[in-house]
């Protein structure tokens, strides 16, 4: 990695949310001190060794971003792998959220240390790729093996310049959740609406009801990270955050989608910005919600606990149907010694076995990323018994990645959801909020665009 490339990585990766201050400081410190190592092999973070029971094996350190209950599901698979074979020992090291893990990875690389495998979000992996820090997976698998194994749509998201840099693992997509019980009581059809216009027609019946003395709202918009769900709305209204790197969030459909939500909140008073919309859905404060497949299991639990029936469906459409993907995948760093990369690939191959991929999907709620996993009896049974899970799998075929500007420009997602917060909470017009964010995004494109285009 060159010094310039490293600075590109350090800047964008570090300045996010909780460690915003840290990010700014680190970016500056990295520039000023210029003392980090940017070339040469890296050691495993903090030394460590293979436990006696697995002595003699190659140790692979996996940095994970999965807490309870997803973390234990990964650990179960790791334990199964460690029990099964003789050459490799995998150790999972949990590193916090996607942001925290990525920030740590940058710092560790500067300190000539790095994990052998790292979970990186759909947004974060680009920063490492642009910084020339990632190693392509292709040479660790037989020709065509990756294409035969993974869902082609999800696999393609990690492919750039003919190489696979990022493998799908914990992928999700927004789903439409609705309260069947409230729909039934409202006298509207008990099914997902075909379109937002249809849902709007139903809304006056649905929102006439009260639960626990509180009037039921139609929708809640997620305060933090809501830009992910809003991406679908921008597309559905015929707009986009960007076309390539050409910023379009302040034009047409994206603005119309923002105005639609503003109208629902401030004129019709049937929607609001929610800190934890999944909880509000569980408590019947809202009748419908667009959120990740990952929330399915828990919303279902709350529905059962609170005595109402949950339904799921494809997202409603406006001018057209559109839905995006999200979540995390696996990357390996270029400076990790070859032997450990090969050992890491063995574990990845284990995760990609249909039975293991199916188990992962069942235990976590993430999409089955391996094509053959959907034929596994356990997953087939789940999809049969739980139509909601089947919805997510069926909708997967209709997904597409988020717009480039959100994925590749540092902090774009934060800027977009901050603009959305202004629309949802301060009644700022969508045109005004998005014009300001578009200006910031265009500055980002001017700064990072040449580097991005060089890598695409």
């Amino acid at each position, binding site marked *: 990695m060159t010094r310039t490339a490293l600075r590109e990585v350090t800047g964008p990766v570090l300045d996010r949310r909780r460690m915003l*201050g*840290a*990010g*700014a*400081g*680190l970016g*500056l*410190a*990295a520039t000023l*001190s210029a*003392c*980090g190592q940017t070339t040469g092999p890296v050691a495993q*973070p*903090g*030394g*460590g060794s293979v436990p006696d029971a697995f002595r003699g094996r190659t140790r692979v*350190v996996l*940095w994970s*971003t*999965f*807490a*309870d*209950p*997803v*973390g*234990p599901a990964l650990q179960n698979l790791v334990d199964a792998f460690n029990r099964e074979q003789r050459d490799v020992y995998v*150790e999972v*090291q*949990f*590193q*916090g*959220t*996607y942001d*925290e893990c990525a920030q*740590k990875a940058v*710092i560790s690389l*500067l*300190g000539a*240390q790095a994990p052998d495998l790292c979970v990186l979000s759909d947004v974060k992996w680009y920063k490492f790729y642009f910084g020339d820090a990632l190693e392509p997976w292709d040479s660790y698998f037989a020709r065509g093996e990756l294409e035969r194994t993974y869902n082609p749509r999800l696999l393609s998201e990690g492919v750039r310049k003919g190489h696979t840099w990022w493998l799908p693992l*914990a992928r*999700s997509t927004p789903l439409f959740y609705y309260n069947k019980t409230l729909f039934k009581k409202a006298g509207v059809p008990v099914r997902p609406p075909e379109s937002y216009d249809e849902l709007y027609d139903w809304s006056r019946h649905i929102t006439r009801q009260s639960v*626990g*003395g*509180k009037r039921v709202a139609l929708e809640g918009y997620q305060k933090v990270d809501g830009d992910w769900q809003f991406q679908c709305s921008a597309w559905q209204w015929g707009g986009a955050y960007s076309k390539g790197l050409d910023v379009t969030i302040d034009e047409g459909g994206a603005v119309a989608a923002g105005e639609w939500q503003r109208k629902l909140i401030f004129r019709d008073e049937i929607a609001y910005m929610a800190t*934890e919309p*999944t*909880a509000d859905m*569980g*408590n019947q*404060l809202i009748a419908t919600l667009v959120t*990740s497949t*990952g*929330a399915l*299991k*828990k919303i279902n*639990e*709350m529905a059962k606990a609170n005595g109402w029936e949950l339904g799921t469906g494809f997202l409603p459409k406006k001018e057209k149907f559109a839905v995006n993907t*999200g*979540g995390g995948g696996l990357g390996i760093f270029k400076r990790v010694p070859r032997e450990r990369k090969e050992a890491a690939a063995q574990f990845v191959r284990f995760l990609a076995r249909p039975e293991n991929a199916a188990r992962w999907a069942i235990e976590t*709620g993430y999409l089955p990323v391996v094509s053959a996993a959907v034929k596994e009896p356990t997953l087939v049974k789940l999809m049969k018994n739980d139509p909601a899970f089947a919805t997510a799998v069926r909708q997967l075929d209709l997904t597409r990645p988020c717009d480039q500007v959100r994925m590749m420009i540092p902090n774009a997602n934060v800027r977009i959801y901050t603009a959305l917060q202004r629309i949802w909470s301060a009644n700022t017009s969508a045109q005004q909020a998005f014009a300001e964010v578009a200006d910031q995004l265009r500055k980002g494109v001017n700064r990072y665009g040449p580097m991005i285009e060089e890598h695409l």
Partner: protein
Amino acid sequence: MTAANSLPDARPVATGSRSGVRRAQRFGLYALLVLVAVIAGGPLYWLISSALKTNPQIYSYPPHWIPTDLHWSNFSDAWRAAPFGRFFLNSLIVSVIGTAIELTAALLCAYAFVFLPFPGKKVLFLFLLGAMMVPGHVTLLPNFLTIAQLGWVNSYAGLIAPGLGSVFGTFLLRQHMLTLPQEITDAAKIDGAGHLRILFRVVLPMSRPMVITVALVVMVGKWNDFIWPLIVTSSTDMRTLPIGLLFLKNTETFANWGAILAGAVMVVVPVLVMFFFAQRYIIAGLTQGAGK
């Protein structure tokens, strides 16, 4: 009625009225204190009571202020999801050892700034004050690179070492030592005491509330520190409690708030106990020099 006769009659009336006013004032004061206590203790009550609720109760609307039946399994869920015993031990080691060393260093520095004549003392102290203005995050990367080169990543040494120089503690103790009567230390010198003896036998006993205050502030800072332990440790067995809480909340799925709040109680309670036992020292330390 004579004036002499009227006085005894008048006095009780005046006293009664004054005591009534006093009673009303006291009642008002107590009411205010209760209100402040409720406001201050409310979040703590909510934390502890919610740690004993089921998830539906936590999320329920209208809110359940009192848990209907105590859901102790939140604590066992938290304990199962992450090795909190180990995290607790690590936090204790880092906080206690780190505070002891940092406090000793701060005491020595403060003493030197007050009682030792050396060239450039004022300029050096200004530099020290300047260091307080530098955001801690700026030093994160250089600190990590230093620790990495020393081979201390993922170790207690790595967790403790960068926090050992306490500018804040030095500053606070220096300001306190400046208020001590010079005659006492002069007398000790005349008696033949060296600097270390003066520090530990004369200055320290007179500074106990301030030293305890600094120790508590430093220790709580270390107990709650999140970023440095996250950066410098990698394996689960070296994590501290604030990072342990992360193990309980997955970002993309629904949070098990019962377990998270139970974990938060485990983090907060030791600090509360510490404050409970040391509060009179803290008050004495912070109010020293306030009264004439």
